[in-house]
Structure formats: C-alpha cells, structure tokens
C-alpha cells in the first residue's frame, strides 16, 4: 500500500506547464532555508541577503537588469531554434564573436568616431555572431553534421581567437602589455537609460527581442513552420515547409542576438575589450531558455531569476562570508526542482491506496 502515487494524466496539464517553474522556485527557497539553517545561519536573514537585499536599492535593480540583458538576448534566439529542434549550444562563441567584430570597430575608429559609429558597431556585432552561427548551419544543411557538436566546439575556437586578439592587435598600445584594449570613446559606448545605474541601451534591445520573439512565434507563418518542424518533422515535409531554410534562419537569428549581447557587454558595462567578456552567459542562457519554457515572456522572467542568483550569490558572499559556490548551489537546486516537478505535467499525485473510479468507456 503506497500513500503517495503518480497517476498518468489523460492529457498534459496546461496549468502545470506554468505552475511547475513557480513550484520549483518555492522548493528552492525551502531547501535554501533548510541549508542555511543547517549551516548555522539565521535562515531568514540569509535568504533576505540573498534574494531580497539586492532588490532593495535602485542600483541593485539596475545590476539585475544589466545581468539579465545578455541572458535574455541569447535565450530568446536559442529558444526559437530549440522550438525547431535546432540545438545551438554555441551562444557563448557567437556572443564572443559579436564582441570581437563590434568592439573591433570601436578600436579601429578610435579617435575618429562620430554618431554613426555605435549603429555600425551594433550591426557588426550582430553580423559577427550570425557569421559564427552560419558555420554550424552550413555543416548541418550540407553534411548533416550535428549542430550540437559543431556549435559547442566553435565556442572554444572563439575564445582562443579572442585571446589571440587581446595579446595582439586589440591590445592597448599604452597598456604595459596587459591583455586589455583601450577604453572605448563616448561615441562607441551604449548610452545609459537610468541615471545612477549601469542599465544601458542593450536592455531595451532585450525587451524588443522579447516582443519580436513573441510576435514571430505567435503570429507569423515562419513561427508556425518552426513549431511544426520541431514537433513533427514528417508533417512539415508533408506540408512542404523548407527545413533547410528554417535551420539557416534560426541559427542566423540566434547568432545575431548572441552577437548583439556580446557587443552590449563590451560597449556597455565593460567599456573595453578584455579576455573575459562573459562569465558563461551563453551557457546559462540555455538554462534560461528552458526555465522560461521556450516562451519569450517566460524567458524574460527566467532571465531575471538567473540574474538574481548571480547577484544574490555575490551579496551572500559579502554579507555572510559564504563561499562562491553558493551561486552554483542555488542555480543547481532550481534546475533540479524544475526537472523533478515537470513530472506533474503528465502525471498527477494521488494520496492513499488505489481505488476504482468509474470513467467513460473507450471511444
């Protein structure tokens, strides 16, 4: 006799699709409470320091937006690809390339910029990311090579390319051989949106990407084709949808958005080129995309949540003297609980022993 059992649902529960991320957050908080308590901290105070305190100042909120911006930009593009079964794992590399191409322009026109420089950098950043994503797209369409592997491997190539540039052409001539570029001039830096914070124009782009991503998937025929290809490729073939076109489109789009994210970092909070542009935004964006259920609005919320785990982790290190790993622990718990509670989409919990229920006969 079991007291608690799982019973298959007749059809997937739509309510649970939206409820399980919230349930996962609640379970993470509960586990965090126990964890802090077991470690001898005041759990209320610790959770406050982790999750609430960073949000209590304008500056903290601004940092949240700054961290969420690249995550959301990358995740929107990735999610559209994931919907079509195009598994781009290379947002980190595409982000790096966007920084290299866009940031390179800032250095190339150092001292001779104008109002036109920033728009040009934005276009170049998106083109750089898209170009980097074009490599796995070509290999997939032409040779049927798995884009999971090719895009992942290109991340390392991009990182080495950046390192080479930082020790060579991009290095500040007056920088005592440190692998850092000159600070970008005012013409090459994204304007700030909110005084007293570091929130920059890139955050607006991220919001635009959320809206455009929603519009693409919900309203356009391309979005419909993406959905069908992802769900049932044979039905897409029957309908006459061009799968190669969709592979190209989704990879170029996610590459361009990742490139924009990279440009936004170097022309935003960083303000120069250096060898550590991203603390893994391109990878974390994969988690953000799934946490947000591949839905643009969900991704926006998930982006803020992941950004909070970064910032809260830092705050907890400072306020409580906790180790750096606390960020990873919370991100890990969140993912774990999300995956675990997802079982509720297809199953329901039943308490007590099995009992006969009268249902309707087979159709």
């Amino acid at each position, binding site marked *: 006799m079991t007291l608690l059992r799982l019973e298959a649902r007749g059809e997937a529960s739509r309510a649970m699709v939206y409820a399980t991320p919230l349930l996962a957050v609640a379970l993470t908080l509960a586990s965090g409470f126990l964890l802090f308590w077991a470690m001898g901290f005041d759990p209320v105070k610790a959770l406050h320091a982790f999750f609430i305190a960073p949000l209590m100042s304008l500056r903290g909120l601004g940092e949240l937006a700054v961290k969420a911006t690249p995550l959301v930009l990358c995740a929107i593009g990735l999610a559209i690809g994931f919907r079509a079964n195009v598994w781009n794992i290379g947002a980190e590399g595409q982000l790096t390339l966007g920084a290299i191409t866009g940031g390179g322009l800032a250095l190339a026109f150092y001292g001779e910029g104008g109002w036109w420089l920033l728009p040009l950098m934005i276009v170049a950043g998106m083109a750089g990311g898209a170009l980097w994503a074009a490599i796995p797209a070509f290999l997939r369409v032409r040779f049927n090579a798995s884009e999971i592997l090719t895009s992942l491997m290109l991340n390392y190539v991009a990182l080495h390319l950046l390192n080479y540039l930082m020790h060579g052409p991009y290095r500040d001539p007056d920088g005592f051989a440190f692998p850092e570029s000159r600070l970008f001039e005012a013409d090459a830096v994204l304007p700030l949106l909110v005084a007293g914070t570091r929130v920059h124009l890139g955050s607006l782009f991220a919001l635009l990407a959320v809206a455009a991503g929603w519009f693409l998937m919900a309203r356009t025929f391309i979005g*419909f084709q993406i*959905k069908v290809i992802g*769900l049932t490729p044979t*039905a897409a073939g029957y309908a*006459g949808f061009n799968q190669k076109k969709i592979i190209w489109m989704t990879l170029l789009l996610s590459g361009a958005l990742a490139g924009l994210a990279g440009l936004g970092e170097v022309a935003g909070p960083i303000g120069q080129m250096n060898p550590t542009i991203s603390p893994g935004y391109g990878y974390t964006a994969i988690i953000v995309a799934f946490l947000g259920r591949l839905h643009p609005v969900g991704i926006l919320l998930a982006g803020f949540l992941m950004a909070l785990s970064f910032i809260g982790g830092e705050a907890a290190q400072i306020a409580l003297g906790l180790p750096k790993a606390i960020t990873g622990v919370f991100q890990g718990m969140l993912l774990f609980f999300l995956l675990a509670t997802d079982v509720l989409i297809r199953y329901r919990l039943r308490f007590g022993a099995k009992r*006969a229920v009268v249902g309707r006969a087979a159709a």
Partner: protein
Amino acid sequence: MSFPPHRLELRGITKRFPGCLANDQVDLVLRPGEIHALLGENGAGKSTLVKIIYGVLHADAGQIRWNGHDTHIPDPAGARRLGIGMVFQHFSLFDTLTVAENISLGLDQPGPMDPLSARIAEVSERYGLSLDPRRHVHTLSVGERQRVEIVRCLLQDPKLLIMDEPTSVLTPQEATRLFETLRRLAAEGCTILYISHKLEEIRALCDTATVLRGGRVVGSCDPRKETARSLAEMMIGTELSTPERLPQGEAGAPKLQVRHLSTTSDNPFSTNLKDVSFEVRAGEILGIAGVAGNGQAELMAALSGEALVPDPASVAIEGRPAGHLGPRERRLLGLAFVPEERLGRGAVPELSLSENALLSGYAREPLVRSGLVHFGRARSYAERIIGAFNVVTHGHRAEARSLSGGNLQKFIIGREILQKPRLLVVGQPTWGVDAGAAAAIHRALIDLARSGAAVLVISQDLDELFVLSDRIAVLFHGRLSESRPTHHTSVEEIGLLMGGLFNHPPDEDEE
C-alpha cells in the same frame, strides 16, 4: 465434470486506462480446437483483452482460468510457459538476421542453432508453411515474414494461438493458405483466437465469434450463420449504410500523368519504383492495390513532392511537369494529398485542429497574408471542415491527437477536399477507421470524383478498392501492372497480381 474443461475462461475482466474503460466485465470462453473470432471496431477493447491474455497487461479485476484452473499470467514469458502463443500485427523481426537467428532470439530456451534449424524446417513442413531457416529476413515477402512469427509460436507447442489481424498484410491467396494452416492446427486441438474486422474471412474461418463494443461483450454468434452485414451491425450497433457505386460518368482530361517513373534510394530496405506509368482522368477514381512494402510509400512521396524525381516530366499535374516541384508548388497546381500516416504526417498530434487546418490549407486557402497567419480564418476553415464532415470533437481547439482515428481521418480528408482540388491522392483512406466513418469517407471520395476531380486511392484493402475504384492497378516490387476496369476484374485476379503474376513474364534482375 464429464467433458473436458475449457481451454481458457475469462470472467469479469476489467481494465481501465486514464480517461477510458478499455474492458468492462468481459467474459470469454475458448474451447479446445475451436477457431474463435474476436470482433470489434477500433477502440472496442480487442487489443487490450488479448494483451491481458498474453500477459502484456494486467487486468484491474476479473478471473482467468486456464484448463479449468485459476491462474495468473504475470508476463508474456509466463503466457508462453502455459502454452499461449501470439502473432502480432506488427512483426518484430530483424531484417539483417536469418530466419533461424530471428526465431532463436524470440525463444525462451533457444538451444544451439543447427538442431533449431532442423526443427524449424520440420515444423514449417508439417503445417504447410514453407520457410528456409537460412534466408535473411529482408529477402522475405511479408507473408513469409508472418510465417516466421507463426513458426516461432508453433515451436513452443502452443495450446492457444492468438492471431492479431493476420491477413491485413497478406494477398487473398496467402490468406487462404494461412487459413489451411490454422484449420490444421485447430484439428490437432490447438485453440485459435482470431482478431479481425474483415467479416468475410471470419465467416469463412471461424466457429464462434464474440463481439466487443465500447469495451463490453455485446454478443456472440456462429459467424457461419450470419451475414457480413449483420456482423457489421453488431459491431457498430447501428444499421450500416454502404455507399453505392454510381455508374462512372464521362472520364475527362487527364489530371495526373505518370510516365516511366523510376526512383533510386540509398536505403537498402526501401523499394525502388521501376518504370511506373499511369494516368488519372477527371471524374474517375483509380485504385492502386498491393501488399505493403511494394513501393507504396515511395510512390506516395514521389506524387506529393516530399521526394523530388530526377525527370520533371515523369510526374505531370494538369499537363504541367511537376517532378521537380515541392509539395507547396504541386498544391498550387491543384493537388491535394492525404498521407497514409494520419498522426505524424497528415496532422501534428500536439497542435489544435485550427493549426492543423493551416498545415496544408495555407497553400490554397487565404489563411496567410504577407507572412502573418490569419488565425480567425484558420479557425473558421477548421470549423467548416468539422461541420461538413461531421467530425466528432469538442471544437477547433482540440488537439489532433485527442480525436479518434476515424474522426481525425475525416478531418484530414475534409481539409483536403474543401480546398477544391482538381486531383486528390489518398493513401489507405480507411485503415483502422470504424465502419461508420469509413462509409462517410468513401462517399466523400466518390462525390469528389463525380464533381469532376481525379482521385487516386492507394490501399491494401481490396474490398475498399472494389467499392471505390473505376479502374484498379497493382503495385508489386516497385512495378505497376496495367490497370483494368473494376467491373471486368475480380478479387481473385487482383490477388494474383498482388502476388506478382503480371501478364508479361517477370524479369528477375533487380535493377
């Protein structure tokens, strides 16, 4: 007891799945040596019941008695130990292994290969199932593959043999040979539980029939004393209306012309089409018969545009070369297409009916404007289909997978017909569809042809082709026979063609 106990006795078997009661208090008695038919429409609970007997599923309630003793069948191995064998509708054979190796894999105690091969040869000889243990399965016809499955069961010396829709893949001649084997087994005391919805063969073969409807036993009878019509009415519970075939009108201009179509494939297990030629004219229905795997899938793909053909002129729609065109362009020329697989090709299971209306409707209906989906129109298009074809569903928001097979097929056929095609190609229009829906689908296809469209039906169901077609041709090993007018041919003649006996001597070279 003075007379021998029943072979198998089921009392009050009940099995519930989420949202449906698949078996409701089912009683069934099988005697030694009888051939017992289990009749019912799709979803009546036949498969669930035999899976319970074979130990694949377990009943929620009810008793099973085997040879007079209460028993519990924990799993298929336990069923085989009791002496229950089952031949499934879908074979589980490895193409690249030999007959003996395949059989060995399916036995609980296979033993060494050589004595096994000898036993296979002996058993297959005794029951008239000629089979060479050394042949590789991919070289066998479908009928021969089925023999492999049957011999695998016979090696275990079964007392009860369950056959699930065994003739759905056989030619009429192969079916006749199978019946001889089954009668011989029954004469030796083996009980046969025979599942089918082909009523004529049940009348020819079985001693007793139990009819299931909606998970319940609704009656049992001696099928030899019933007509096919009375059996069908027991199955569906209402009176049956069969579409009449009206005399064919004037056949008009050719809408589809296929000329010397040959295909090549990298897949060694696909069937290449070889020099296939035919045409379908306005106002007529051409039927293409054939056992599955003789090139139907390849022909469907070459016609729909899912596979392009090297010579554009080998497929012409309304006189325009179309072999190089994709599905969308062919639809714009006037083609509509109903694939064999309903869920997963003809419809996306997880999407709503409005979205599935858009799936093929986008080409000929005004559902997309400057790249944007007009959801209002997609919805009203779906509602038009649901209304015109009596699709039973709770509305255009229902997911395609929530519909029964027959209702989904009505929806897909409706979606294609409402696009007012000049040419409709349909694969297996009523496979696995209940009798009521099948009659509605047949009527819709006939009406479409009478309204001046050309209709091509590719089906394995000869009864269906004889009801629908004006002319019938047969596909065998990638070649297409000459077509002949339906009223100048017979099931026997078409059956011989399905076995490869074309008028011209068959040439053996494969390329």
